[in-house]
């Protein structure tokens, strides 16, 4: 992390005498790379790296591995499927293996565990990523795995169990599958990320990956949608509304009034008597924000509301509120989206 450039100290005497004062050269304070030469034990972290990038969940897993290693003088080894800044994320050793097939990844992870003999293996608990990989390898090697881990320590881990109703605490098993935000990402000095060579593992694939299947984002089930554009009683220009949704690639939703009137089918209703949604972003056009509707979007992270009524409850709930007529904003937004970043 760089310090901000130092302020220039004024020297009034020199200024009065007309001497120029040289500004001190800004020193970018570079923290030295921390090297762990003889670790007591290894913690192996395997980030998901969906789309070839470290997600926030992956960074949390690496942070947890760093914390576990620092508890007892150990080191963090990372098995990665793509390149990223692992030194900055706290990795002492790095094994980079570019395989995409899940069975090949399981075989590689099993071989890495046998080779490195880590004390614990940490993965993000995602159904199709680390959660699948960790459980596969746990079954293959006969290692116990704990899922939905909320806190991880060398002596004690806390995991959610019993359908999400109980927290179970106990000694950590060899494989830990971490929930999101189980630990803070590493924010300290950079680490070595020394490369490790692994022998390639030959695998006869039994599961053939036929590739992604095109999914119509606009018609996704509301429960699964990541981005929802919803219409309320204030929307009269339905053509423009559907164009905005298609341009944004967002799922269409509506309030109860709109579904009652037949403008949208019932399964598109958002609210207490419709679907409780949890998208990352919710864009509401012409929705007043009745309490049942707000209940439906209680778990939304970012809400944008466009409504002509300044005192509507939806305006109060929204993170970005625009008091204007939805009919004028929708075509302008569709045009803006189609233009992209000017």
């Amino acid at each position: 992390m760089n310090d901000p450039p130092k302020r220039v100290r004024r020297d009034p005497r020199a200024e009065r005498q007309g001497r120029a004062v040289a500004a001190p050269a800004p020193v970018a304070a570079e923290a030295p790379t921390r090297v762990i030469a003889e670790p007591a034990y290894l913690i192996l972290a395997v980030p998901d790296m969906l789309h070839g990038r470290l997600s926030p969940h992956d960074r949390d897993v690496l942070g947890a591995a760093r914390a576990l290693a620092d508890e007892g003088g150990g080191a963090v080894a990372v098995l990665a499927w793509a390149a990223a800044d692992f030194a900055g994320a706290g990795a002492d050793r790095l094994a980079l293996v570019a395989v995409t097939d899940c069975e090949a990844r399981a075989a590689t992870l099993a071989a890495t565990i046998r080779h490195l003999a880590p004390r614990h293996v940490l993965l993000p608990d995602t159904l199709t990523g680390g959660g699948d990989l960790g459980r596969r390898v746990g079954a293959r090697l006969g290692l116990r795995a704990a899922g939905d881990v909320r806190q991880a320590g060398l002596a004690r881990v806390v995991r959610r169990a019993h359908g999400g109703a109980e927290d179970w605490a106990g000694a950590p098993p060899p494989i830990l599958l971490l929930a999101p935000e189980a630990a803070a990402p590493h924010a300290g000095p950079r680490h070595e990320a020394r490369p490790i060579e692994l022998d390639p593992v030959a695998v006869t694939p039994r599961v053939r990956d036929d590739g992604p299947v095109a999914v119509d984002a606009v018609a996704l089930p509301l429960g699964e949608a990541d981005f929802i554009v919803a219409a309320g009683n204030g929307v009269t220009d339905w053509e423009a509304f559907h164009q905005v949704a298609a341009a944004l690639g967002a799922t269409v939703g509506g309030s109860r009034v709109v579904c009652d009137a037949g403008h949208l089918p019932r399964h598109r209703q958002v609210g207490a008597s419709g679907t409780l949604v949890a998208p990352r972003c919710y864009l509401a056009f012409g929705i007043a924000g009745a309490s049942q509707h707000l209940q439906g979007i209680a778990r939304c992270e970012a809400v944008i509301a466009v409504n002509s009524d300044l005192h509507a409850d939806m305006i109060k709930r929204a993170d970005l509120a625009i008091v204007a007529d939805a009919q004028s904003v929708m075509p302008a937004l569709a045009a803006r989206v189609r233009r992209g970043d000017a």
Partner: protein
Amino acid sequence: MLSVTVLVSIGRHPGSGRARRAVRDAQAVELALRLPNAIVEVVHAGNPDRSDVRDYLGMGIGWLRVLSLPAGADAVPPLVSWLRARRPDLVLAGTLAEAGEGSGMVPYLVAEALGYPIVAATTACELDQGRARLLQALPRGQRRAYSVALPLVATVDAAAPPARAVAFSEARRGRIEAAAMPSAAAEAALAWERGPARPRPKRLRAATGGSALERLRAATNLTGGGGTTLVHPDAATASAAIWDFLVREGMVAPANRDEGGADGRG
């Protein structure tokens, strides 16, 4: 004719704690019932006298196999020996149990013991001449297709078609065929200390950069975008503000507008 076995467990209602059929296990039974030319056997390892397991019978399967085990016994070895003797073509299960440890390991342990490949989080299955075409549910509503030769194990995700409703008369009429199995206690599950779930605090997004006052404002302002309100802006300003917000949230990528398209694993 294909032999399909579905592994089911007793579920738990998240609000009341009442025991009932597990949601994903019921979806697995539904998936199996929709397969053409399949002989479906539903297997539960546990107590045959419990009435909650009859909820599965209410789906119209006619009969249910229960491998009777004492409470606290490990379910995996009896299931594995049962399945090894029968070698079904397709084994379906839910992704996670709703009661107890819920480690999600049972389908993987079963697959490893039988030597079958396993595909997780499926939502649809089509069978075609000894191969199965499965759709896997990825995050954010994406789907990926896999083609596997039978026999295989598949776990069913919550995004699969919903299970049919339970009919009380079917649940009463259906038969439970119990089979006694040798069992051992699941010692490792006893080592955990159980307590009620405590909600974890949500992480605040820490702003970096800017002056100390700006960082303090960003940290104490719990609504993400700062709770901005624009009053009667013109359409261009409004759409620009919305666009910037979406770019900042990462919902749209400025250069590439194709956010909603099919996106595969990198």
